[in-house]
């Protein structure tokens, strides 16, 4: 029994990461009908920003020891900033010119951005993984046989916090309403006075901020940052977003956690090597019976 609880917690951890990244995917897809393949790389850049920030604090001060809360908060904030800046650049340079191009052009462009970012970081770090300085205490909470790291709890809590914040943002603010409008019908939204370009940028920004912050916290959890660390989580997160219903914010969260927990539990019976197989099989099964995902809108073309 204890083992299952442990597996559940492990699943929630990785599920939380998938969920937060999936939020970014689903937002961008909602407004642009485009898969931002480079979204996982924003997560990776967030992780590196976190490293360089904390490492900087470590080398030039002792703030990491005295006020870790401050340094961690700064790291997270900077992670969000860097991710946001990158997202804005991406949107401007690689996606906006392709708004009216055929479906596949922005996809290839996104893949190009992903390859570019990954390999720039590979060169910058010279293929070395960067090890985070020990800032977040790695204390373990022990509940019987189950062991949870505090940083894990932080990650999980943060992901739920982000969901709540994003949900409020989308549902209760004017900007959120604009995003929903553009997602539903771009030209009508424009007619209604919504600045479409600005809204799209803001959508990218929101998704990116979340991914960047998640990157920092994940980096602290796994203690290393490598240039390839965003690629597979990015693909899994997209799978999660599709699973939950792309375009739906709660769907992304649901998909993320569902995927994380399934992966974790399947490891027990099938071994970790089949993790990805399980993820995709799950996806196919869900899509056969509900092609629009678990919480997605039924795309009714009739009438």
């Amino acid at each position: 029994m204890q083992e299952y609880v442990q597996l559940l917690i492990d699943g929630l951890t990785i599920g939380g990461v998938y969920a937060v990244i999936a939020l970014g995917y689903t937002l961008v897809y909602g407004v642009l009908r485009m898969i931002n393949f480079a979204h996982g790389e924003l997560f990776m850049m967030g992780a590196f920003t976190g490293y360089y920030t904390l490492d900087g604090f470590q080398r030039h001060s002792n703030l990491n020891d005295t006020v870790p809360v401050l340094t961690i908060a700064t790291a997270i904030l900077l992670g969000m900033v860097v991710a946001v800046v990158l997202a804005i650049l991406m949107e401007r340079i690689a996606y906006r010119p392709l708004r009216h191009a055929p479906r596949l052009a922005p996809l290839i462009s996104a893949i190009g951005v992903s390859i570019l970012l990954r390999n720039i970081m590979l060169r910058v770090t010279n293929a070395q993984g960067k090890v985070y300085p020990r800032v977040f205490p790695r204390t373990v909470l022990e509940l019987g046989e189950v062991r949870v790291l505090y940083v894990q709890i932080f990650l999980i809590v943060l992901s739920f916090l982000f969901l709540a914040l994003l949900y409020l943002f989308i549902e209760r603010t004017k900007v959120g309403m604009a995003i929903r409008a553009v997602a539903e019908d771009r030209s009508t939204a424009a007619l209604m006075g919504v600045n479409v370009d600005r809204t799209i940028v803001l959508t990218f920004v929101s998704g990116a901020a979340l991914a960047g912050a998640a990157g920092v916290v994940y980096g602290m959890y796994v203690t290393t940052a490598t240039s390839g660390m965003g690629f597979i989580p990015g693909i899994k997160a997209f799978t999660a977003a599709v699973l939950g219903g792309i375009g739906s914010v709660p769907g992304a969260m649901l998909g993320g956690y569902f995927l994380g927990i399934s992966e974790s539990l399947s490891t027990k019976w099938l071994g970790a090597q089949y993790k990805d197989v399980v993820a995709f099989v799950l996806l196919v099964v869900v899509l056969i019976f509900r092609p629009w995902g678990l919480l997605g809108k039924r795309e009714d073309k009739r009438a």
Partner: protein
Amino acid sequence: MNKLREALAPWSPSRLRERAESRLRRTAAGTAVLNNAPYALLPLAAIAAGLAPEHLSIRWAFATIIAASYFILRSSRDLFAMVVLGAMLAYLPQKMDRFEQGILFDVALYAMLGIGLNIVVGYAGLLDLGYVAFFAVGAYAFALLSAPVYGGGFDVGTSFWIVLPMAMVLAALAGVLLGIPVLRLRGDYLAIVTLGFGEIVRIMINNENQTGLIGKHVNSTHGITNGPVGVFSIPKPHFFGIDLATPHEMYYVVLVGCLLAAFAAERIRISRVGRAWEAIREDEDVAAAMGVNTTRYKLLAFAIGASIGGIGGVIFAAKQSAVFPSDFNLDVSINVLALVIIGGMGNVRGVVLGSFLLIGLPDVLRDFSINISFINLDNLGADYRLVIFGAALVAVMVLRPEGLLPSRRRQAEFEQVRAIEAERAT
């Protein structure tokens, strides 16, 4: 960004070329030169390849080949041009060294894969991100059938030429298997599921050795696929007594395969099936309303595209004499998709050009370095290869989203869209 493009427009290559052309065409001599210019490049290419000094040869020969190919491919309506291109592609490897021949083999192989994927993505409009699965099926089919037991195979001893049609059928079956569950999916959903399929195939191959879930019941020495160790010592194929042992020799096999695949693809495209695909690509619901059996044609697209991938896999396994699960990762699918789209979708000529650029150039630039005064970038080619690759993908897409050699129909579609946009902007 748009303003910049507008400002630069009068000096864009196409505009410059138009002005130069119109000026030249005013004279008879000028017209003659223009009409025959592409063919003049060919002897130049051959000479360049043969005579270039050793340390320059790789770059200049390849650059000339690409330039010549570009112009020839553009005017592909001309029978003469195509024959000359074929002759050039067949002759030039004689003049290249081992390394360049290897690159040419890769270019040709990926071009063939591109032709196959083009059927799925370009003709039928089905976004397939897992094409490597069919490549893997073909490769492992040949590998497992012909490799000796110590190499991880079953040593059935089937000849390469018999495995080719077998792999076609197997891969086509795999294509249908992939197609059935995804019939109802559109666009990006389809993309992610096909991506998953590609990954599943790779993972299964990697794990089904003697400890795999299914593998352990099949065979105690190496399961089904021999796992991450791969299958090696695959024997080389024979052709009427000639051993096809070098990349150069296998290159001819791929070249013929490419030609056949291109021919088949073209014939299908202008047939009823091709028209059905076009209808499905343009608007699936309208097509269904008009009586097109979308299920059948979609599955057919998957199957035919997959079978070409399977053939490519068999040839790859024969050339490398060893296959590993890591050879069949997502990067292969992405590379093939990228070259199809950058070359110009729906278009065999575009695929060929795309393959030259995306597969040939990075390897050719392996030891490219810039050493001009204070700029000292040693190993620019080797270390920054992929950075340049990614940047190039973005650049080409942003500057020419229809691809470098789009089919005339797509070019027309694009001009239409651009005209509308220009109107909207004013």
